[in-house]
């Protein structure tokens, strides 16, 4: 009775069923859920307010207008918060390992990564995602973009690739916690730090920071490089113009690195039991 492999559709269905169970369980604590979602939504506005505050003192930041920076903020935020809602709960793995619950995951016919993502799915984090979408929408409305099919595709690709990139940083980083639990904090500085940094035009940073954000943790491909094309700017900061379209490549590379790190982490656990 060798079960055939699951199709993509079956995986999606399983994700929905399992994550849905988590949502139903959380919904029992209704007031807490709603309160949390609203608070998150409101609080992320303070996050954007910071940028507005800065623009109170300047009309352009490194040559970028408020609407253009809001566009960067929105792109980065949407990608980041989609990853936050669907993937970030994987960081609970060290809690599972410490309590022994991780073993329960390994005796099931599913990958532990998938189970971690669905077991602790937290819909209440979506409040932040809604805010990011709103900012992106308002920015797009405020900007006078000449929409072509390619521009729309680049935006869509930026969001998808961006989600993959942030997810990869999360998963790859979390894999490191198999070796050292404290690695989580370092990973956070790359995920939250990556999101924070890519809210601003890359030219704000010194060269070495830009190289980090392009070649090490490719968060620049989430917002800055795609935005260059969409906004009709060309300041690729020393890199070839084609970099504006390379988000999918960065996403693929990140995914491969993350996958390798996670497998190594699981191998380490199965060899040492901790």
């Amino acid at each position: 009775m060798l079960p055939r492999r699951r199709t993509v559709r079956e995986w999606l269905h399983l994700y929905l069923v399992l994550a849905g169970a988590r949502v139903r369980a959380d919904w029992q604590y209704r007031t807490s859920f709603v309160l949390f979602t609203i608070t998150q939504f409101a609080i992320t506005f303070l996050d954007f307010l910071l940028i507005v505050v800065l623009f109170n003192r300047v009309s352009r930041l490194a040559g970028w207008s408020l609407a253009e920076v809001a566009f960067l903020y929105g792109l980065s935020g949407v990608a980041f918060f989609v990853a936050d809602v669907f993937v970030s709960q994987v960081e609970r793995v060290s809690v599972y390992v410490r309590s022994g619950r991780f073993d329960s995951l390994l005796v099931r016919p599913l990958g532990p990564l998938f189970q971690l993502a669905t077991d602790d799915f937290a819909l209440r984090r979506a409040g932040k995602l809604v805010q990011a979408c709103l900012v992106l929408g308002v920015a797009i409305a405020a900007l006078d973009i000449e929409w072509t099919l390619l521009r729309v595709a680049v935006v869509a690709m930026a969001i998808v690739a961006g989600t993959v990139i942030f997810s990869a940083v999360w998963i790859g980083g979390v894999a490191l916690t198999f070796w050292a639990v404290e690695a989580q904090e370092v990973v956070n500085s790359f995920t939250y730090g990556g999101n924070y940094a890519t809210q601003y035009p890359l030219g704000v940073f010194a060269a070495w920071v830009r190289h980090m954000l392009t070649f090490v943790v490719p968060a620049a491909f989430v917002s800055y490089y795609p935005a260059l094309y969409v906004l009709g700017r060309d300041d690729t900061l020393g890199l070839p113009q084609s970099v504006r379209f390379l988000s999918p490549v960065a996403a693929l590379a990140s995914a491969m690195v993350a996958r390798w790190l996670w497998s190594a982490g699981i191998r380490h656990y199965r060899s040492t039991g901790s």
Partner: protein
Amino acid sequence: MRLWWEVARRSFRRHSTYRAATYAGVFTNTVFGFIKAYVLIAVFASRGGAPVDGMDVTDAVTFAWMGQAFYVMVMLTYLDLAELIRNGDVVAELYRPRDLQAWWLAADVGRLGYQVLVRSAVPTVVGAVFFHLRFPSSPGVWIAFAVSFVMAQLVCFAHRFIVSLTTFWLLDYRATQQAAAVVVAFFSGMLVPVTLFPDWLQAVARFTPYPSMMQTPVEVLLGRHAGWADSAAALGSQLLWVVVLFAAGRIVLAAATRKVVVQGG
């Protein structure tokens, strides 16, 4: 008096064992310091270097890095007390014949003592190496800063004490803790100096205790409150918040204790 010293010392010891976690925290603080500093430099560059309200780019960058140094003091918005309340073990605490608020203050000071050594010192050094920072030369300013620093810690502690106590009524403290963290970060000047806020927002901020946590001491350090009158006003406003928050803390504690006694936890 001896007791509080012991409590602080034990807390210092306990936190010094979390070595790897501290180093990881240093890394995060440093990374965010870089991002903040570069953004502020870009802001001033886009103004052609024109100062804001007397604050120039060097001031702002120093401010950014001092913010990271103050992180361990400011950004903790709850105490272990919150977890004790949530799982009911707090009853033992309430029966102690010692002042609860003073006890936790001593423990907090001990924690800060250790974390300041590493998590505050290292980012400051890194910031000084990579950027041009401005530190005062006059001893008077350093003394004023020291006083302001102490009061900032008291304000921060009193605030986290109250936030932790809300667990008595709310049970799940994570939401309040996160909400408080964002509000604190925003209005204390941790993310962007309050000096750069528009005037109306600055006025709003001054009505909250948050600038006393970080904005005021760093302003003192940067010499923005030169002269006795100015310094006295700044330190005075901090002192006011210390008194108000400590008093509020005791009131909330009394209410919480009553609740526990009446309802049995």
